[in-house]
């Protein structure tokens, strides 16, 4: 009896092993970890673009992992809240600069690549027309983001300094400072948060969008 049991037992074990073998011929690959390894091995420093740029913060990591799918609500809310905390309103309380300088910034798509000389905000553009329609005169505009033509006018802003305009003005500033504060996986660069543009530059973009005299609002 004792001896007869053994072959059966062995057979059963063999069957289990072979079933497991069919389901997973190789150990499961942790693709996310393998991706991290591949990224690390594939890139090198060049000029101002160093490999530390491959490090992701929580928002970039979560949105990457989702592979284009929406985030679970809880994750999304947490990311937006964390990014909201980073938004710094202008130190002097003034939101509106010069729309003419803002238009030049909006046209300028340069900055932060390995062919750019400096990471200083002064050498960066806003890249705005790459993704947005802004003034009517510029026909070469992108459509990744929504049209911003008549941005202030459509929102009823006649005087950006008036108390009535405050919610729109602050919301717009927040968008420019850190777009992920209101949209966790936004494609828009976090201009203030990532030190791409300084306060003065952001004010000029604010003027382009909200100044009633800006061509955007004609």
């Amino acid at each position, binding site marked *: 009896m004792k001896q007869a049991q053994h072959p059966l037992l062995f057979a059963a074990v063999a069957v289990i092993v072979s079933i497991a073998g069919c389901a997973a011929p*190789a150990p499961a*690959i942790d*693709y*996310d970890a*393998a*991706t991290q390894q*591949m*990224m690390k*091995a*594939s*890139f*090198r*420093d*060049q000029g101002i*673009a*160093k*490999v530390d*740029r*491959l*490090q*992701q913060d929580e*928002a*970039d990591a979560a*949105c*990457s*992992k*989702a*592979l*284009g799918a929406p985030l679970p609500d809880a994750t999304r809310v947490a990311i937006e809240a964390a990014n909201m905390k980073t938004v710094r309103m202008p130190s002097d309380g003034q939101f509106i600069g010069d729309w003419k300088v803002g238009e030049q910034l909006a046209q300028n798509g340069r900055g*932060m*690549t*390995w*062919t750019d000389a400096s*990471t200083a905000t002064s050498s960066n553009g806003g*890249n705005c*027309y*790459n*993704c947005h*329609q802004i003034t*009517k005169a510029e*026909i*070469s*505009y*992108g*459509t*990744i983001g929504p*049209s911003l*033509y*008549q941005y202030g006018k*459509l929102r009823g802003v006649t005087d950006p300094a008036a108390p009535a305009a405050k919610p729109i003005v602050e919301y717009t500033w927040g968008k420019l400072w850190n777009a*992920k504060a209101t949209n966790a996986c936004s*494609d828009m*660069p*976090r201009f203030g948060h*990532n030190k*791409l543009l300084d306060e003065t530059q952001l004010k000029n973009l604010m003027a382009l969008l909200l100044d009633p005299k800006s061509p955007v609002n004609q």
Partner: protein
Amino acid sequence: MTRILWAGAAAAIAASSPAVWAQQKSSAEGIAEYRAMLADGNPAELFEAKGEALWKTRRGPKNATLEACDLGKGPGVVKGAFVELPRYFADTGRVQDLESRLLTCGETLQGISAAETAATPFGRGEQANIEALVAYISAASGGMKFNLPQGNPEERKMFELGKRAFFYRAGSHGFACASCHGEAGKRIRLQDLPDLTKNPGNGIGFAAWPAYRVSSGELWGMQRRLNDCYRQQRFPYPGFGSDVTIALAVYMGVNAKGAESIAPSIKR
């Protein structure tokens, strides 16, 4: 009175959109006209001719041609090879794209150091030869449909890694490939952006490279295309033939299954 004012305002808003659309349409038509005028007489032909001559010329320390190079369909087979790359090669144990495979052939057949060529800046020295060669080799598959093999586990692994690399957001701007190429019907400025997460159509996206770049007057292979994508994504520098570039090519190439290649095409 109030009603009339409102009606006027509504009419003004309504009128603004069609006007904007009309303008958009005419610029798109203008660009289409411009592209059509350039298509007849693509300077990529100059590179094809140079590449064909290079393929058949004895060069390098071993004084050999590339005619015995195996691009995946057997030694010397050029036609049809391009639309099945990248693929797994047993002799190197790697999934390779056209450019990295040419480095291998250059080294094994001709004795030209793959590492040196990979480290050479685009458009110079051996890299200029690689560009001419990819023009020639891709042209030999003109009109054929992409059909990348996925039978080897390494090929499937590269697809999975390529997908994750495509969605990998990082850098100062938080961009990924998917920021621009994850959705259909979008543009940067006036450039249409193909959705590379699926087959964007014959001769679009992956099926349009290598291409003659009008802006620089150079022939760009997929390696250079991806390199400049990463530059504009504000990423650090991807190595020539590095795994991330090959994984992305596998992802885009498998997605483009069935798309007809028009390479080498002409691009802005």
